[in-house]
C-alpha cells in the first residue's frame, strides 16, 4: 500500500512538472509562455538539443497544431480521404516542429512584452505584443491569435508578424504546391516529409 502511494505521488509530481501550467487568460497565457521560452533559450547551461526538446514540448501543449494543419490545407480538408488527412496531419506536425526549432537562435536574446488584447469572438482573442530582438534593434509587432473555445486551455493558432499572418502564408504556399500538382495531397505530404528529414 505504501509503495502504491509513493508511486501515485511520483506520478502526480511527474505529471505536474511535465505539463507547464500557464494562465488561462489569453494575454497572460501568451506573456508567460513566450517569456518562459525566451528564458529557456537564453539559458547557457542547456544544450541546443535540450532547448529544442523544450520548445517542441511547449509547442505541442500550447499551439493548436491540428487546427493549423487543417487551416493550411484549405478547402481540400473537406474532400480528402480520412487516411490521407491523418497522414497529412502527422507530416505537418513534424514539419511544424522542425521549422520552429530551426529558428531558435533567432529569438534567444529577444525582449518580449504584451501590449494589448482584443476579444474578437467567443472563440478568438488577439493578443498584441512587441519584441525587441537585440540591443538597438527595431521593435517587431507580433499579434497572437489565441483560440479560447476551451476556457481552461487557450491555444495559439496563428502569429501575425507586422501584419503578415504566418498561417495564411503557409496556407497559400501549400495551395500553390497543390495547384501545380493537380490537388494531390500525397505530393504535399511527401514534400513535408522531405523537409522534416533535412
Amino acid at each position, binding site marked *: 500500500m505504501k509503495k502504491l502511494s509513493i508511486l501515485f505521488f511520483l506520478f502526480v509530481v511527474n505529471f505536474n512538472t511535465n505539463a507547464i501550467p500557464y494562465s488561462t487568460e489569453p494575454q497572460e497565457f501568451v506573456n508567460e509562455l513566450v517569456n518562459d521560452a525566451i528564458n529557456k533559450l537564453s539559458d547557457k547551461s542547456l544544450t541546443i538539443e535540450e532547448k529544442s526538446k523544450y520548445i517542441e514540448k511547449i509547442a505541442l501543449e500550447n499551439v493548436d497544431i491540428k487546427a493549423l494543419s487543417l*487551416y493550411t490545407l484549405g478547402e481540400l480538408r473537406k474532400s480528402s480521404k480520412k487516411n490521407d488527412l491523418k497522414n497529412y496531419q502527422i507530416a505537418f506536425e513534424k514539419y511544424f516542429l522542425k521549422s520552429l526549432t*530551426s529558428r531558435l537562435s533567432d529569438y534567444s536574446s529577444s525582449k518580449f512584452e504584451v501590449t494589448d488584447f482584443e476579444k474578437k469572438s467567443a472563440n478568438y482573442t488577439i493578443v498584441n505584443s512587441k519584441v525587441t530582438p537585440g540591443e538597438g534593434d527595431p521593435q517587431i509587432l507580433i*499579434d497572437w491569435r489565441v483560440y479560447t473555445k476551451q476556457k481552461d486551455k487557450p491555444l495559439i493558432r496563428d502569429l501575425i508578424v507586422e*501584419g*503578415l499572418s504566418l498561417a*495564411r*502564408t503557409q496556407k*497559400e*504556399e501549400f495551395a*500553390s504546391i497543390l495547384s501545380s500538382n493537380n490537388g494531390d495531397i500525397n505530393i504535399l505530404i511527401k514534400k513535408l516529409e522531405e523537409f522534416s528529414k533535412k
Partner: protein
Amino acid sequence: MIIKRIKNLFISALIITLVSTAGLKASEECFEGISRSVFKFNMVFDDIILEPIAKGYNKLPEPIKAGAGNFTSNVATLLSIPNSLLQGNIKQVGHATGSFLINSTVGILGILNPAEKIGLKPHREDVGQTLGKYGFGPGCYFVLPVLGPTTARDSIGLIADSLLDPFAHVTIQEKELFGMSGNSVDYFSVKGTAAVDFRSDNITNFESLEKNSIDLYSSLKSIYLQDRENKIKNSTDTQDDWGNLDN
C-alpha cells in the same frame, strides 16, 4: 526620339495588358512560368550582388546606416505627399509634408529624423496604394526582373510613380524644382541605397524564410500580397477566415 517612341509604345502595351487583367484575383498569376523563371534570376541576382552588398552594409557603423536609411526614407516621403492628397487623407498630407520639411532642414538633408521625435510618422504611400484606395483590385500577380513581386495594379502604379514623384521629376526627367535639379544617376543611387537598406534589415528574416519554405516563390507572393493589402488599408488587421474551420 525612336527610343522614346518605343518606350511609350511599350508602356501603352503594358498598361493595356495589365488593365485587361485587372479584374483577376491577386492570387491568380499573369504568367506563372515566366514569373518563376524571373524569380530564379532574381534569386541569383540577390545571391551574387544584393545580399553581399547588404551584408557589407550591415558592417558599417550604426550612425552611417541610420543616416542612409533616414535619407532614403525622407526622399520617399516626397511621393507620399501627392498620394496622401489623392487619397483625401489630409492628416497624412500634414504628417508627410511636416516630416519632409523638418527632416530636410533641422535633420540635415534628411540624415537625421527629428520629425519622428515630435510625433510625425508619415505612411509610405504610392500610386498603387492610391489606386487600391479608389477600389481598383490588384489584378494578376507577376515578378519583375530585379524589382521583384508586383501585380497589374502595382506595376501601373510604379510607372505613374515616376511621373508623380517630385524626386523623379528633378532627377530622371532632369527638370528644375525650387532651383534644384539632378540626373538619373542620383535617382538610381537613392533607390539602390533604399533597396540595400531594406535588404540589410531583413537578412535574418529572409534567411529564415528561405530555410523554412517548401516553395519560396509562393511564400514571398503571399507576403507581398498581404503587405500591400495592409498598406492600402493602413492597418495590420488581417482577414479572418478561421471562422469556418470546424475543429
